[in-house]
């Protein structure tokens, strides 16, 4: 049954998030290849699509018209005339499998320079992944990459294990989804699993706040650097002085523009946004002070209250937002309460004493401290374990997979190619529990 022990051939670990795809050797402490999950593509002009005629109703027809894909660090971020930007992920799950093979291939073959057919591959999945999705992933790894062995591991369980805990309440905040998963003795309690697009909301709100004028400043133009020809230094708050690359303006697509502006908003969030440790308080905001940030256009400004308002969205939604949109994604305290109360009373204390915080989004400045305060306000004796090392938090699930797949003793769990050929899809659900 066992052909491939982790000791003889280095296994590979592939962790696909909605912002980046992480790949590397099992046993390493950081992934070798970190590439954007966003990819650029150019469509074939419809009239050139002769061979594809007659399949207009096929949902994959859209993708079959993709003439060229641009992936990796030189993918969407390079200006190309007429290039659109896509992302295969939706709510943390792979929605469109077509770009997945090129993305993984780029990470393994172009960045890591290896032959995937030589290595067992461990892939991670979120706790709410569907059986059809994981089987499709197994198919890709075996059929497209010819890998000798495959395993798919749950990110929540990996995060809990990496904290040394068999039982934990795992809070994973990613690029677009935030999830709360109760794990008991290494197994996910499905009924307590909740997730929402909270990080996406925070991001959208940040973009909105920046582009809208307020009493002190005008709306900010999030023009990306690819479209700025040159700029002159200006004083904070003054009208930016820059020239647009007119030659490029015609060639950009709506999806690319949107992606590029979102990236500018993300940069702003990473640089200046923060959350107060004790809830909203004007004095605390004043005490923490404003922070200067400059956009690609040269516009710069001292951001004060705005940079904290954004962070509050993780914990509570302002009433005017809630009134305008009753279906806002649940805030972190709401997610946690929903998760904990759907579990049996006798395990609630175990979960709350072992809260594990992970995911790149959890590195939002001040979030871990605030979460700790909020939890202790709602529940007694809640305790958060958040790795202090940012790499451990950002790549926690990759790292967990890396350690697991590097163990010689783990070999009995791999699904070998022979087993796949003999049993087919059902073996994935049987082996990867």
């Amino acid at each position, binding site marked *: 049954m066992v052909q491939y022990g982790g000791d003889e051939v280095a296994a590979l670990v592939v962790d696909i998030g909605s912002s980046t795809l992480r790949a590397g050797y099992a046993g390493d*402490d950081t992934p070798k290849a970190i590439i954007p999950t966003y990819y650029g593509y150019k469509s074939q002009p419809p009239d050139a699509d002769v061979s594809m005629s007659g399949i207009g109703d096929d949902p994959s027809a859209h993708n079959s018209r993709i003439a060229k894909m641009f992936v990796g660090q030189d993918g969407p971020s390079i200006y190309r005339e007429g290039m659109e930007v896509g992302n295969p992920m939706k709510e943390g799950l792979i929605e469109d499998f077509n770009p997945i093979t090129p993305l993984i291939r780029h990470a393994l073959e172009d960045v890591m320079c290896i032959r995937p057919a030589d290595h067992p591959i461990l892939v991670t999945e979120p706790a709410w992944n569907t059986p059809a999705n994981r089987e499709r992933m197994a198919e890709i790894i075996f059929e497209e990459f010819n890998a000798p062995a495959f395993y798919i*591991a*749950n990110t929540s*369980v990996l995060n*809990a*294990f*990496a*904290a*040394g*805990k*068999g*039982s934990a309440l795992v809070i994973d905040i990613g690029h677009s989804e935030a999830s709360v998963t109760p794990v008991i*003795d*290494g197994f996910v309690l499905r009924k307590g699993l909740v997730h929402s697009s909270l990080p996406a909301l925070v991001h959208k709100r940040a973009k909105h706040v920046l582009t809208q004028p307020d009493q002190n400043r005008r709306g900010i133009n999030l023009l990306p650097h690819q479209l700025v020809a040159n700029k002159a230094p200006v004083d904070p708050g003054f009208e930016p002085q820059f020239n647009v690359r007119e030659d490029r303006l015609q060639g950009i697509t709506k999806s690319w523009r949107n992606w590029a502006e979102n990236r500018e908003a993300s940069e702003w969030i990473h640089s200046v946004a923060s959350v107060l440790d004790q809830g909203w308080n004007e004095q605390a905001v004043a005490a923490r002070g404003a922070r200067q940030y400059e956009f690609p256009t040269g516009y710069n400004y001292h951001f004060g209250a705005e940079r904290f308002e954004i962070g509050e969205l993780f914990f509570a939604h302002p009433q005017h937002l809630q009134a305008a949109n009753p279906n806002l994604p649940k805030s972190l305290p709401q997610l946690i309460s929903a998760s904990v109360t759907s579990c049996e009373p006798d395990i609630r204390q*175990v979960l709350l*004493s*072992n809260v594990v915080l992970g995911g790149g989004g959890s590195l939002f400045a001040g979030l871990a401290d605030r979460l700790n305060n909020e939890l202790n306000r709602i529940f007694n004796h809640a*305790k958060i*374990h958040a*790795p202090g090392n940012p790499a*451990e938090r950002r790549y926690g699930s990759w*790292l*967990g997979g890396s*350690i*697991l797949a590097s*163990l*010689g*003793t*783990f*070999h*009995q*769990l791999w699904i070998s190619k022979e087993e796949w050929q003999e049993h087919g899809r059902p073996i994935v659900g049987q082996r*990867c*529990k």
Partner: protein
Amino acid sequence: MASGVGLHNECLTVYQELKLGHKYKYILYALNDAKTEIVAESKREVKSKEIADLTSEEEKYKLFLQDLTKGSTCRWGVFDFEYFVEGKRNKLTFISWAPASSKIKERMVFASSKDALRRSLVGIATEVQGSDEDDIAYETVLEKVKK
């Protein structure tokens, strides 16, 4: 999802001696250096001088904690916990100790191997998981044991 790490034969032998023969007050288990097997790292006999000299259960438990939390190593401990509720009783208590100061690889293998050990130890009445001293303090554990 488990690491596939197995148990050394001695793990169960000493556990049986504790459970049936009440030979030991506690046993400590840990991963071997290669992280390929769980071994019984150390144990303390009920009749040993260190235990026999101590009069209260709390002191015995504290001695156990000293051994359990030594260094930055992840360990499992089985402690024969004695308490009073309408007379003297005892419960076998299983404690997982993974301090934040331990290495991530060790924590990962430790947590993913626990099931192999725990499932083999039949008759454990209480289970506690800790990563700092508050989690496994005498009062905390006593409260759980009494439930």
